């Protein structure tokens, strides 16, 4: 038959195929008058069509079924393989058949594996030989061992290996109702076997429970290196063009394996994760794709399986043992979720980078230590740590050990590979918060007193970070974190240079308009606040806030943080009118958002500060009281944050002249701060100063002076000589000198204070007013009235412009100006100033405050001299 004739026959066939039988012949006869043989051919086709084609209709699978014999029906040229005689079929796979063999002399058993249809392709022979080589290379008690190997005369290769009489891992656990820790220990053994293979540069690539047998004595054996891959190098990645074509078991195959991407040791880590999932839940993480799914499963999107903890609750495969501790607690389940899902992360970069890392976390879990894989919230890590260390640990070492752990954690992870989630900003943020949390004490009632030691450890962390040039993003994260630690430790120079480096790196990496850059700008601005470089601080923070607002949603923590920082710098500048609404926003956003209560506490406390500086004492006290109860509930009574709020409340009491209350609050705070920070910390210095101030007003000068000299020494060392904290200490010393009528000493102190404030703030700051007012007081004390009057007028002007005409400080300056004018016998002017000051004071302050008493006394003198006895009588 030729093509033309075949075309005609087909046309006839299609014309009649679906006609009733009796019409077919008729139609064909009529159509083929010229060539009846055409009609015959077409009719034969119609008959064949009706009869069907058994081979084709059965499908290729049945054809294969008939062509390929069953393993136990497969003829073999011999029954002897080395020392072993085969007795029965153990199993068959795509590659070959495994028989049970027995040694005649010893009777010992072994598994004999034979490559079936070796003729088919060199690739198969190569793969079989490769499995044999791999087994020969792997010599480990948890891996089935190779005994012998050779080739039959017909070219069929075979090898003999250890026969493992066991059952698959999952079946074993089900049959023995193995507890969760028991399952984890078996799983750990599997990991150790795989780890051994990886150290020999072998990836298994087909890990699944049926390849992991457990003997009745609980010994694990890893089998079937049939598609194992020998890595060419230690980088742990195999070339995908060499990927074996054998179908891996889809349920355990890593996404990169399914897609035909590069496989590596991380591919085995994925399969181990799936096995762990199955051990914990009795279920596979994903529905196994149907074989007819047309390869769509190969392109399955990255997705997270349901958390093992959730599935395990449903499936209840874990024995409900009565032994306490054998059922995981809620937090333990959270760990197991992280452990398992990290191992089987869709993205190889996010998995445990090695089986070693996986084993470490299994061990961490089993001994109740924090996991390395945890995307750790501060509370989580600390919770774990504290649970393990309920017995008191020497305070100083707590912080130090944690620092070692964190720095080691960072650098180990970073140095380990160009991998992992650390480069992720969110995660770094958490780590950072945790790290910084160390210095704020968390659950410990004592803190890193050994600051030097901690600094040394952080220094080491910085050295490690420097070596990570190839990882600029991670390096920048690390610099930012370590910069934050230095800032907390008061090492502002180092904080500055690291934070600046982080900012530069991030700008270079990401460009100027990115949240990462915003974060670094705000961080650097915050260091600048501590350095009292407020113009720079405000510039940086505003820049950061603007980038954050452009790149993040308005309620994003990044925006909230930047807003808080701006509020803080404005407050530091004395611009309370602008700072308060910003800080109000921060409190509101925090209360609306899902932030820990302690963060709400922090924002309340910042807002309280602004109100305090603005002279809104009741508002400030009420905010601080809320913050205090939040901190006490979260941290207990001996936490440094509790001390911080106590100090703020003390300051407020002090300002209103309630000195005994101020003293008492400051003393409570000092106990906590000295225990936590140690005697030479800047926070302790601040606390000492506050206490001293209260003591001064209670006329306990010697005690106060001693405390203040301690504080000054700490501050000069920590902050350098030109710093507001140094200035405020000097101010206290000046006040004491003044009270003791040591005017020269007082003048020297107040001048130094004024110089410092001028250098930092310029002329327009209330502290300039305060310093000027104090300096004026020394002139007044020395009876140098004209200088005093001029200085007080300057002070009133500055205070009234910066803090407002109604502010306590303005009032006090006016009363003092009034006293000066009185001494100068300018009675009317004196009366005006004193009266104005007095009227402000009585509205706000405790009537016993010395300034009110002084004002009343002066008013009496003034009115008397002015001949207004009736007015004078009001103030007697």
């Amino acid at each position, binding site marked *: 038959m030729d093509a033309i004739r075949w075309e005609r026959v087909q046309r006839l066939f299609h014309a009649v*195929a679906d006609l009733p039988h009796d019409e077919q012949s008729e139609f064909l006869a009529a159509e083929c008058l010229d060539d009846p043989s055409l009609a015959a051919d077409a009719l034969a086709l119609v008959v064949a069509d009706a009869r069907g084609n058994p081979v084709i209709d059965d499908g290729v699978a049945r054809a294969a079924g008939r062509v390929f014999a069953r393993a136990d029906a497969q003829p073999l040229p011999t029954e002897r393989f080395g020392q072993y005689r085969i007795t029965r079929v153990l199993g068959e796979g795509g590659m070959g058949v495994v028989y049970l063999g027995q040694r005649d002399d010893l009777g010992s058993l072994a598994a004999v594996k034979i490559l079936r249809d070796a003729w088919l392709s060199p690739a198969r022979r190569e793969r079989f030989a490769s499995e044999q080589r791999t087994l020969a290379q792997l010599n480990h008690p948890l891996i089935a061992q190779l005994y012998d190997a050779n080739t039959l005369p017909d070219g069929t290769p075979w090898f003999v290996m250890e026969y493992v009489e066991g059952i698959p891992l999952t079946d074993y656990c089900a049959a023995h109702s193995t507890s969760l820790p028991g399952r984890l220990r078996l799983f750990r053994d599997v990991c150790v076997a795989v780890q051994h293979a990886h150290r020999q540069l072998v990836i298994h690539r087909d890990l699944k429970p049926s390849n992991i047998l457990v003997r009745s004595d609980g010994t694990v054996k890893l089998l079937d290196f049939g598609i194992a891959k020998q890595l060419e190098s230690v980088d742990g990645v195999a070339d995908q063009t060499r990927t074996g074509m*054998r*179908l891996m078991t889809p349920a355990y195959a890593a996404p990169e394996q399914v897609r035909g991407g590069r496989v590596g040791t991380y591919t085995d880590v994925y399969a181990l994760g799936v096995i762990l999932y199955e051990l914990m839940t009795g279920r596979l993480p994903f529905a196994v794709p149907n074989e007819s799914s047309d390869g769509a499963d190969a392109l399955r999107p990255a997705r997270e399986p349901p958390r093992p903890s959730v599935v395990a609750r449903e499936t209840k495969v874990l024995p409900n043992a009565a032994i306490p501790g054998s059922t995981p607690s809620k937090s333990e389940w959270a760990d197991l979720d992280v452990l398992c899902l990290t191992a089987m992360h869709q993205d190889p970069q996010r998995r445990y980078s090695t089986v070693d890392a996986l084993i470490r976390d299994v061990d961490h879990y089993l001994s109740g230590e924090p996991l390395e894989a945890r995307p750790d919230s501060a509370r989580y890590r600390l919770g774990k740590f504290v649970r393990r260390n309920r017995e008191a640990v020497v305070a100083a070492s707590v912080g130090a050990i944690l620092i070692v752990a964190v720095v080691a954690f960072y650098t180990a992870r970073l140095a380990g590979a160009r991998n992992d989630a650390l480069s992720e900003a969110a995660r770094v943020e958490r780590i950072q918060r945790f790290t910084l949390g160390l210095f704020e004490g968390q659950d410990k009632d004592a803190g890193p007193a050994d600051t030097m030691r901690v600094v040394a450890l952080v220094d080491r962390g910085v050295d490690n970070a420097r070596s990570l040039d190839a990882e600029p993003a991670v390096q920048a994260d690390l610099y930012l974190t370590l910069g934050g630690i230095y800032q907390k430790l008061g090492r502002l120079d180092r904080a500055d240079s690291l934070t600046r480096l982080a900012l530069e790196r991030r700008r270079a990496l990401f460009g100027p308009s990115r949240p990462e850059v915003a974060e670094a700008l705000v961080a650097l601005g915050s260091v600048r606040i501590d350095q009292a470089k407020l113009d720079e601080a405000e510039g940086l923070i505003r820049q950061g806030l603007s980038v954050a607002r452009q790149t993040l949603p308005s309620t994003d923590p990044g925006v909230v943080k930047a807003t808080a920082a701006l509020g803080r710098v404005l407050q530091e500048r004395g611009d309370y009118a602008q700072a308060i609404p910003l800080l109000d926003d921060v409190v509101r956003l925090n209360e609306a958002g899902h932030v820990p209560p302690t963060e709400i506490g922090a924002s309340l406390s910042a807002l309280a500060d602004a109100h305090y500086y603005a002279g809104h004492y009741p508002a400030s006290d009420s905010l601080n009281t809320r913050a205090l109860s939040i901190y006490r509930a979260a941290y207990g009574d001996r936490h440094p944050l509790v001390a911080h709020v106590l100090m703020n409340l003390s300051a407020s009491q002090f300002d209103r002249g309630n000195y005994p209350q101020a003293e008492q609050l400051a003393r409570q705070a000092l106990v906590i701060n000295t225990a936590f920070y140690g005697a030479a910390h800047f926070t302790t210095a601040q606390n000492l100063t506050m206490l001293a101030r209260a003591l001064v007003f209670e006329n306990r000068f010697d005690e106060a002076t001693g405390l203040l000299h301690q504080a000054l020494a700490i501050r000069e060392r920590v902050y350098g000589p030109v710093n507001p904290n140094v200035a405020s200490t000097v101010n206290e010393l000046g006040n004491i000198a003044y009270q003791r009528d040591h005017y020269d000493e007082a003048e020297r102190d107040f001048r130094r204070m004024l110089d410092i404030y001028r250098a930092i703030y310029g002329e327009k700051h209330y502290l300039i007013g305060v310093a000027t007012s104090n300096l004026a007081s020394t002139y007044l004390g020395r009876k140098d009235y004209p200088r005093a009057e001029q200085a007080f007028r300057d002070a009133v002007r500055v205070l009234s412009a910066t803090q407002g005409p109604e502010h306590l400080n303005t009032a006090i300056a006016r009363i003092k100006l009034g006293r000066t004018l009185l001494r100068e016998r300018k009675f009317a002017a004196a009366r005006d100033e004193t009266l104005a000051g007095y009227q402000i004071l009585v509205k706000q302050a405790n009537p016993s405050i010395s300034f009110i008493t002084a004002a009343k006394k002066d008013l009496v003198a003034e009115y008397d001299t002015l001949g207004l006895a009736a007015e004078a009588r009001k103030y007697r």
Partner: protein
Amino acid sequence: MPHGLDLSDFGTTFDDTRALDELFSATYEELRRLAAAVRRGDPSATLSPTALVNEAWLKLRESPRVASATPVHFKRIAARAMRQVLIEAARRRHADKRGGGAAVVTFDESLHEPASGADDLLALDDALDALARIQPRQATLVESRFFAGLEVGEIAALLQVSESTVLRDWRAARAWLANEMREHAPRRRESSGA
């Protein structure tokens, strides 16, 4: 068994030996799997080996030689591989039954299956060759649909004809092959026994 596929009618070179070798191995293992599933009475055995072909494509496309082929082209190659592996196995099975092999050990003689399956397949192979001489397009159609389980739509795209043409061609070819196999099978057996 030749190590390369006969691809002379594909109008292109596809000669990455390693990739082809892998394709053979995979094909063999898939057919083994299908065979075992059939013997177990597993209903999935009635499914075509489409998944294998898709998967093989995904894996082999990274090979520079394979990358130049389109997915459909590749599926044709996979179909050819399926056919050649199966036919070669049938040839060996046929030879065994006729005393070609030196079998001394089998664990269960009763399990020996009739060789008729192998013979039918060899007849189909011959008939397909004959069809290719008359109408290559239809031979390609049968090879793609029967051995690799390609969908009608894919075959239509491959052959650049409509789906209804594919269905008509298939029906006619299936009937023609049945006649051809019945006519020539006995002759073939005689000749291969010589």
